[in-house]
């Protein structure tokens, strides 16, 4: 039984992109949306089919469904384009197509009144195509290519409302920051490929056949450690790990469905996927690199959670929550071992990735529904929406409960696994993780209480419930959030392909739930009714609070480095240098020639006798030099 049809999973969105892109001026607007949705719908169907077929078949082996040489570098290195099916890629296929399909359907309603409908769906299809291509990549370089494509489609989608300057800046920032990270990724790839002579995952994920020198080459790390760190840099860029997270909050300038798809559920977890993909390499050759990964994950999850507590833009809160949640996943990967029980972190991380996709997409779509209704992003201008948008309210609540890790919602299960994995290896990180669980519950319910309860505001026109076409995908996602937790994830996905039996670690579960509930309680206390408690709290933290609202000034530092240092102190002087030193030097050659010409013009004095004088002097000098030479 073959998997050849899987190629259509990838190709169909691409076709939708091409049709929508080329026919943008000729197609009726409605049609373009349906073409794209149809394409992704079929892809979704095929993905489920694949998943069913793959996970029900006995072997958990890697399957190459399709492969062709795309570009040859030298005798050993070549880029292939192909489709690799293994547990994580199949899982990702399901996640991506599902969320995509939901977002596509949702967008039909959400974007109805926006211009550039066809452009929107064309870019969205491009994104789905890139993301699908990324996860099924058979080799590092194919992954890198689609990685870049994902970046550019993200850029295009963030910049959808391109006539707003803030949008332009945000899209630019998103692309450049990730690009910077990708540079590291690329160098990492090159280093790995130089050592192994291949890009192929089939070989790279079987570390038995590889050998690396582990002698330290630079700053105490071995080459492979450096390479994997650089690869992680790429992942960190896409997954918005500290300090490369700055683009993600700004990326919320894009249309909200886009945020749901790209900046919550799919693209941002590409980094996690990347590390998971190369996990055998990491754990076999670069434990130090994994340590760094864990540290970055732990730090980011706390850092982002703290900031999220202080923000007022609904989408930014969600963005920071995303960062925080991805930090969780990265942390889990970082503490994981390879094979057996030690690899719980690996499974947990991907499990969280899976559940997170559903509830975070739901959160964003819910946020979209709210924004759609009230035409603002600022939660201080919202309140009492539970009356106006009952369905949205319920769905949003489900999502909040899920992310807070309240059983029996999916988030509880995945988070529990992560906490269990962390606890066994790093108690300090466990402390952070549990704290973050509480913070998460706090800021999510802060959001929830302010928006849906609180004091009702005076809206320009009364907010109303969103149409069915937007509600249906949300409902489906809510179902996912509620029930995916019961999937025996370890059965399907583990680091070494052997089934891993997950079971709930009760002490951990209880502590995390307690923290979560207390977070919710604090939020209820502060925000359910108008109260000054939150302000007092903020005052108590003082400068800490202020810097958290300012996102710890990371953006400012970036601006300083880019605008101040690179732009003002390097590029401008360089441009000046080019014009006024190098070019001036070339001009100087010319002007000096002219100048010399002016200086010697007196030799041609018009005086015959001077001519004769020079004549005879010339003769005599030549003679003299010969006399001198023969002496």
């Amino acid at each position, binding site marked *: 039984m073959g998997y050849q049809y899987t190629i259509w999973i990838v190709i169909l969105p691409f076709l939708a992109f091409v049709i929508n892109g080329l026919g943008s001026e000729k197609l009726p607007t409605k049609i373009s949306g349906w073409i794209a949705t149809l394409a992704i719908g079929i892809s979704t169907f095929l993905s489920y089919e694949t998943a069913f077929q793959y996970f029900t078949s006995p072997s958990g082996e890697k399957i190459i469904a399709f492969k062709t*040489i*795309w*570009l*040859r*570098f*030298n005798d050993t*290195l070549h*880029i292939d384009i192909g489709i690799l099916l293994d547990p994580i890629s199949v899982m990702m296929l399901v996640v991506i197509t599902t969320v995509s399909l939901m977002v596509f359907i949702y967008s039909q309603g959400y974007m109805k009144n926006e211009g550039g409908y066809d452009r929107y769906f064309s870019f969205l299809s491009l994104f789905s195509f890139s993301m699908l291509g990324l996860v099924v990549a058979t080799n590092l*370089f194919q992954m*890198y*290519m*689609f990685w*870049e*494509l994902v970046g*550019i489609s993200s*850029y295009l989608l963030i*910049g959808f409302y*391109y*006539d*707003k*300057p803030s*949008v*332009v*800046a945000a*899209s*630019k920032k998103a*692309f*450049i920051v990730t*690009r*910077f990270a990708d*540079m590291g990724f*690329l*160098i990492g790839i*090159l*280093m790995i*490929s*130089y050592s192994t002579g291949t890009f192929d995952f089939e070989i790279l994920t079987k570390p038995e056949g590889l050998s690396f020198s582990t002698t330290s080459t630079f700053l105490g790390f071995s080459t492979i450690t450096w390479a994997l760190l650089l690869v992680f840099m790429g992942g960190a860029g896409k997954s918005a790990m500290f300090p490369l997270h700055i683009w993600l909050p700004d990326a919320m300038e894009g249309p909200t469905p886009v945020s749901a798809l790209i900046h919550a559920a799919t693209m941002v977890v590409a980094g996690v996927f990347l590390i998971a993909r190369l996990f055998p390499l990491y754990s076999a050759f670069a434990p130090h690199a994994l340590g760094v990964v864990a540290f970055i994950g732990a730090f980011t999850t706390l850092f982002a959670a703290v900031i999220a507590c202080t923000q007022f833009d609904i989408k930014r809160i969600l963005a920071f929550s995303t960062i925080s949640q991805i930090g969780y996943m990265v942390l889990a990967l970082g503490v994981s071992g390879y094979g057996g029980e030690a690899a719980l972190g690996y499974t947990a991380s991907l499990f969280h990735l899976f559940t997170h996709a559903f509830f975070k997409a739901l959160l964003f779509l819910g946020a979209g529904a709210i924004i759609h209704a009230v035409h603002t992003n600022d939660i201080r201008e919202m309140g009492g929406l539970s009356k106006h948008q009952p369905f949205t309210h319920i769905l949003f609540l489900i999502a909040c409960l899920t992310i807070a890790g309240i059983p029996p919602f999916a988030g509880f299960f995945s988070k529990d696994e992560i906490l269990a994995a962390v606890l066994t290896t790093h108690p300090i990180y466990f402390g952070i993780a549990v704290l973050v669980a509480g913070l998460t519950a706090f800021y999510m319910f802060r959001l929830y209480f302010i928006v849906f309860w609180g004091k009702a505001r005076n809206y320009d026109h009364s907010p109303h419930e969103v149409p069915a076409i937007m509600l249906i995908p949300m409902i489906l996602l809510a179902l996912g959030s509620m029930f995916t937790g019961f999937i025996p994830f370890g059965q399907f996905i583990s680091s070494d392909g052997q089934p891993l039996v997950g079971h709930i670690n009760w002490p951990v579960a209880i502590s995390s739930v307690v923290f979560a509930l207390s977070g919710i309680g604090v939020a209820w206390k502060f925000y359910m009714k108008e109260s000054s408690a939150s302000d007092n709290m903020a005052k108590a933290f003082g400068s800490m609070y202020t810097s958290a609202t300012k996102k710890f000034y990371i953006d400012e530092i970036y601006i300083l480095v*880019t605008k101040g240092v*690179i*732009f003002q102190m*390097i*590029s*401008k002087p*360089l*441009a000046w240098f*080019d014009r006024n030193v*190098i*070019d001036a*030097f*070339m*001009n100087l050659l*010319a002007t000096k020639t002219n100048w010399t010409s002016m200086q010697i013009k007196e030799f041609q004095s018009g005086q015959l006798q001077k001519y004769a004088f020079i004549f005879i002097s010339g003769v005599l000098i030549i003679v003299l030099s010969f006399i001198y030479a023969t002496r």
Partner: protein
Amino acid sequence: MNILIAHIILPALTTLAIMFARTQKQVRAIASGGMSIQLILSFVLLYFFLQERANGNDAVVLFAQSYSWYPSLGISFDIGVDGIAVAMILLTSIVIFTGIFASWEVDKLYKEFFISLIVLATGVYGFFISLDLFILFLFFELAVIPMYLLIGIWGSGAKEYAAMKLTLMLMGGSALLVVGILGVYFTSDVEGARTFNILVLGQHHIPIEMQRIFFPMLFIGFGVIGALFPFHTWSPDGHSSAPTAVSMLHAGVLMKLGGYGCLKVAIFLLPEAANEMAWIFIILTSISVIYGALATVVQTDLKYINAYSSVSHCGLVLFAILMLNKTASTGAVLQMISHGLMTALFFALIGMLYSRTKTRIITEMGGLMKVLPFLSVCYVIAGLTSLGLPGLSGFVAEMTIFVGAFEHNDIFHRVVTIIAISSIVVTAVYILRVIGILLMGPVRNEAYHDFPKARWFEKIATTSLVVSILIIGLMPLLLSDIIRDSMGMIVDKLVLK
């Protein structure tokens, strides 16, 4: 008739026909017709080439012909193409074809304009097909000189200064070439009569101490036209003053003569010196790469932006060549082609935008995406090619170069390679900056709404370039393999330390 000769006869006939044309319409028709046939001819050449190779003809060059010209000096009209040349000829054909359409509306001395343009193209074709150093040099200069008139007469801004500077600097480079070529000619240990034939010279040895003298001359000589730092300063001024089609041809094709020459003459004929001295030029070129990119970041004139980015990209070409291995050199050729197409597209678009907005300062424009969607999308595609997006040609080229550069594992090569790689970030910065200011944002001026949409000839020009970029970007294997196969001859001579 040999298909290669047809490549230089056809432009010559076209110029002749233009001379006898009367109206602007006729001139345009003849020029576009001639260059269309030329384009077809180039594809035919590619087809024949592939067929020959498929039939197992593994000669170093195909379609070789030799007509003795100055037998006493060993000068003969030796022509022949390998894969690299075929690729470059294709590039030239595409760019000149689009260049004709991009200059559709030249109405001042249009006859002379098209004649000069096609003469320039003839020089380029001749350069790529010749196997004899003398002929090669002849065509090289033939390609450079029409630039003076083209910029001087039809240019804008400080055109006289720019034209003079460009011509003198390029001819300065070619002056070095004379010394280098003659040095190679006289010091090579060819038995019997001396020869200028590259292939013959390539099989013989030149004393290393002579190589040390002539390699820098040849490399810098070709490097000047390839915008080698610090000999690149003709480029910003020249491009900014040149008319559209000329910028296209110049950046698109003419600058490639440099890389091609460095590869096929300097390195091929003087491999030992190349090995020994590569590091000097690697430093220069890696400076070129990053310096050009950084200097681009603050430019505001569209043409300056492109000129400096060309410095960066062409620096990458030379950088790759100096890596002295098959992969990187293949990447260099790919980069030449990719950059040729991309920059031609850029310049074509800049010309089209300029004809509407009458300014090239990006800060004076904005929001063009709304009013000129077609051209803007093309511009974005060009930009994405420039920053190396997969699926477009730039990615293929850059990755091949980087992989090739990583085949060296000493610390020096690693460091310069990483410097070169870092340029892709800077590239992204300036490309997005331009797109952000120029195309995005609110429409800056109400008058923009009256702009004519893209016209048919503009569409032909841009579309053919975009399609070429896409074809290479999506299916690079064919082209890359053609080039790689021919690279062996050059690179096999290099004894790597």
